[in-house]
C-alpha cells in the first residue's frame, strides 16, 4: 500500500501547477494550429496561382502536405500528453509506469526550458519500472525540481533527468548547475519538501565530481 497524501499542499498550489502545465500545452497546440493555418493558406494561394497560370508546382504542394502532416503529429502528441496529465488526478494513488511518467513530465517541461534557452535531456533505463503512488504529485515534484534548476541556471546550461532502481527503491536524479539562487529559491525548496513529505519519499541535494548539482528523489517501491 502506498503512503501518499496531499495534505501539505493547498488546493490553490495544486491548481497553479495544473494551470501552468495546461497553459503551456495549449500554447504549443495553438502554435501548431497557426502553422497549419498558414500552410493551408499557402496551398490555397498556390492553387489560385495555378488557376491563373495553368501551372501547378506539385513538388511544392507535396512539401506543404508533408509539413501539415508533421504538425498534425506534433499536435497529436501534445494532446495525448495533456490527456494523460489530466487523468493523473483521477485517483490519489495508482499503479503506473515510471518511465512513462518521467518521459511525460520532462516533455511537458521542454517549453519552459526552451524559453530559458536551457537544454533539458532525459536518460531512461531500458527496463521499465512500475510503482504505486500519486502520478500527479510525483509529476509536480519532478517539475518543481526542474523548475528550481531552470530558475537558478544561466542560459545554455544543461539539465538532465535520470532514474535507477536499486534494492527495491527508485532514485530519480535531476542534475544541473545552480549559478545563482535568486529570491524564489527558498519557496521552491519548501514546495519540494512539502511534496516529498506527501509522497513519503526522501529528498537530498548533492554534487557530482564535476561540481554539478543533483536534486535526488528516493522513492521506496511500494507497488503492492
Amino acid at each position, binding site marked *: 500500500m502506498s503512503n501518499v497524501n496531499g495534505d501539505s499542499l493547498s488546493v490553490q498550489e495544486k491548481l497553479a501547477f495544473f494551470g501552468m502545465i495546461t497553459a503551456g500545452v495549449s500554447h504549443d497546440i495553438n502554435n501548431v494550429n497557426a502553422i497549419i493555418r*498558414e500552410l493551408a493558406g499557402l496551398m490555397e494561394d498556390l492553387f489560385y496561382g495555378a488557376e491563373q497560370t495553368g501551372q501547378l508546382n506539385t513538388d511544392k504542394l507535396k512539401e506543404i502536405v508533408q509539413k501539415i502532416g508533421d504538425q498534425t503529429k506534433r499536435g497529436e502528441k501534445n494532446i495525448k500528453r495533456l490527456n494523460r496529465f489530466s487523468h493523473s488526478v483521477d485517483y490519489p494513488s495508482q499503479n503506473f509506469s515510471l518511465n512513462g511518467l518521467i518521459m511525460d513530465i520532462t516533455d511537458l517541461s521542454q517549453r519552459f526550458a526552451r524559453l530559458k534557452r536551457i537544454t533539458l535531456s532525459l536518460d531512461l533505463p531500458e527496463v521499465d519500472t512500475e510503482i504505486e503512488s500519486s502520478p500527479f504529485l510525483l509529476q509536480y515534484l519532478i517539475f518543481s525540481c526542474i523548475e528550481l534548476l531552470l530558475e537558478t541556471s544561466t542560459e545554455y546550461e544543461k539539465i538532465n533527468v535520470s532514474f535507477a532502481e536499486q534494492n527495491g527503491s527508485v532514485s530519480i536524479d535531476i542534475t544541473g548547475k545552480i549559478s545563482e539562487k535568486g529570491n524564489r529559491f527558498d519557496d521552491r525548496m519548501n514546495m519540494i519538501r512539502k511534496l516529498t513529505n506527501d509522497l513519503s519519499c526522501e529528498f537530498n541535494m548533492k554534487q557530482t565530481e564535476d561540481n554539478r548539482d543533483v536534486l535526488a528523489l528516493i522513492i521506496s517501491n511500494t507497488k503492492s
Partner: protein
Amino acid sequence: MADFQVLIVDDELEFVTALVERLKIRGIRAEGALRADQAMVKLAMKTYDIILLDIKMPGMKLADTIERFNEIKPGVQIILVTGYGSSAEGEEGLKLGAVDLMAKPIKFDKLIQRMTELTLGKNG
C-alpha cells in the same frame, strides 16, 4: 497596394517560412528571423517598415526587445503577435510603443489590411 518591407520575428520556423511566402506571393517584401538578436542584426542592416514580433520567444524580454528595436530604427512599427487571447505582456508592449496586438492563428487578410493602413498612415 502600398510598398513596404516586413520582418517576421518568431521562433517557429514553419510559421515564419509560410507567412513570408504568402506575403511574397502578394508582392509584399518579407523576411524572417527566428531569434530577437537575429532580428536586431537584420534591422541594423536594412530598413523595415513593419516588424511582426512574437511576444514570447526564447531568451527574450519583450520590453528590452522593443526598446532595442526603437533604438536601432526609430519609428519602426511593431505589431505584436500573441498565442493567448488576452495578454498582460501584450498590453505592456502596446504601452511601450507597439502599434497593434494580434492573436495566433493570424487572420491573414486582416494582417495585410492593417499593415497597409499603418504604412499609408505613416507616409501620409
